[in-house]
């Protein structure tokens, strides 16, 4: 279990983390969702005792991250956002190194990494620096797991990784979770959020919402409409002028229009558009995605400040 209590961190005038509180339950796959610069990495680096907080406390399985940092490191596996293995060592040597540092052997915990490591084992004599992006990612995860950690902290493991490899990576995380490992993982890809048990939406060092993905999508506070038209860019510009509209954004070939609860109907939206010679279109209620939720909360935060 990870308990974060009012963690605070500033860099000069920039607030990286503004009194963030959060609990990740034992055995949970918890996602930290937000863009670059939101504070995801700062939070993870503080939890891994690579950075000291300016205020607040946190514990990992009961161990204080500042006072007991050496013990914390023994029970956690960490995969930083930037590839941080030894490029001059081979695949096998890297793994060997991390096992030795933690006083264990590859053989002892091989079952934990077997499924992941098998995919790169044919290249075990290749230098880590010469691996492709996907293979580096698998090696880094293997190294983070080789000492049988109770908690895994993964900083944007899928950034810059193609859609197929991303799906595979999340499948691996699900299997690790099934082994009882508590996982805190960050990502800027909002479509990955739904795989997590619970997620936190983070922006500008603040948690905007912490919930299960489903509850978050169902709790969408305003009306959301899917608008389809032949001239999507044009329609989007027109909808920007719809009275009391909150936002209009494209989601692939569909526009997502947000209006205040109860304010509009498909009819009233169509009527507005037909006033502007736009009639070849459909408007229907839509279910919010995590990205819709994120955009709405971001707009709300902007409106307040």
């Amino acid at each position, binding site marked *: 279990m990870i308990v974060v209590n009012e963690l605070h961190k500033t860099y000069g005038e920039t607030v990286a983390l503004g009194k963030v509180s959060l609990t990740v339950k034992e055995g949970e796959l918890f996602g930290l969702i*937000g*863009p*670059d*610069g*939101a504070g995801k990495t700062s939070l993870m680096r503080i939890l891994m005792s690579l950075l000291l907080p300016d205020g607040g406390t946190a514990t990992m399985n009961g161990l204080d991250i500042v006072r007991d940092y050496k013990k914390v490191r023994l029970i956690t596996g960490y995969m930083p956002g930037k590839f941080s293995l030894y490029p001059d060592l081979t695949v096998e040597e890297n793994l060997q190194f991390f096992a030795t540092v933690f006083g264990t052997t590859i053989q002892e915990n091989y079952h934990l990494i077997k499924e992941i490591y098998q995919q790169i084992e044919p290249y075990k004599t290749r230098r880590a620096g010469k691996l*492709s*992006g*996907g293979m580096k990612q698998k090696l880094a995860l293997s190294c983070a797991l080789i000492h049988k950690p109770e908690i895994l902290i993964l900083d944007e493991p899928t*950034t*810059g*990784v*193609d*859609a*197929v*490899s*991303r*799906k595979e990576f999340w499948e691996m995380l699900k299997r690790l979770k099934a082994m009882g490992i508590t996982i805190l993982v960050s990502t*800027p*890809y*909002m*479509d990955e959020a739904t795989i997590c048990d619970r997620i936190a939406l983070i*922006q500008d060092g603040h948690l905007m919402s912490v919930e299960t993905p489903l509850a978050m999508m169902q709790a969408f506070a305003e009306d959301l409409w899917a608008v389809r038209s032949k001239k999507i*860019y044009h329609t989007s510009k027109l909808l920007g002028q719809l009275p009391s509209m909150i936002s209009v*954004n*494209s*989601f*692939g*070939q569909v526009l997502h229009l947000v209006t205040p609860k109860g304010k509009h109907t498909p009819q009233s939206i169509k009527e507005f558009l037909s006033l502007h010679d736009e009639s070849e279109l459909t408007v229907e209620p839509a279910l919010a995605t995590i*990205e819709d939720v*994120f*955009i709405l909360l*971001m*707009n709300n935060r902007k409106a307040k400040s």
Partner: protein
Amino acid sequence: MITKEPVITVKNMVKKFGHFVANDNLNFEVYKGEIFGFLGANGAGKTTAIRILCGLSTPTSGEMKVAGFDVFRQTEKIKQNIGYMSQKFSLYEDLTIYQNIRFYGGVYGMKVAERKARTTEMLDRLGLTDYENRKIGDLPLGWKQKLAFSIAILHQPKIVFLDEPTGGVDPITRRQFWNLIYEAVEKGITVFVTTHYMDEAEYCDRVSIMADGRIVALDTPEKLKEQYNASNMDEVFLKIAR
């Protein structure tokens, strides 16, 4: 306006590194004024192809023209006629907005008066006129990306290459960025873009998908979805690239 006038023609493009074939006989055209999505899994050969089309790498064989210039013999001409932006390489963090613009204007050989006029127009459009003396390093990522794109097309290139331009930015900025792309297209610039966001693939006029050094699919998003019986591009990509 999309025409059938090609600004990039690629015929039998092959690039080998030793025995490894990174680009295995690619054939396609990019039309003037279109948004051309260039997708593929990591290691499929996208970066290799982009480097060749930007005049940064010499292909092993084939017949390729970019903006009317030959990729073997006229790479300097190509570089003058294209813009390039990626998530990794964009602007100089230690220089101000103004200094970056001046630098790139100089690199592209723009005349001073022309550069100044376009700079004023661009900063005004982005709402950054009051910030021209801010260092790039002090700007939020979203601003940096928008600026980097605007500077990449400051010299009004025929084609702009965007290599994962929206990685890591928030969902609102990501969409604002695409509005900038549409504006550039309205000015007649052809856009060649790679992305890992499959919803963005739907914003392209045509999409090509690479796997193992070959182009395995190339069509409009609509037709690809039809052909692969998929409801969105994510499904198309998973069916093809897996």
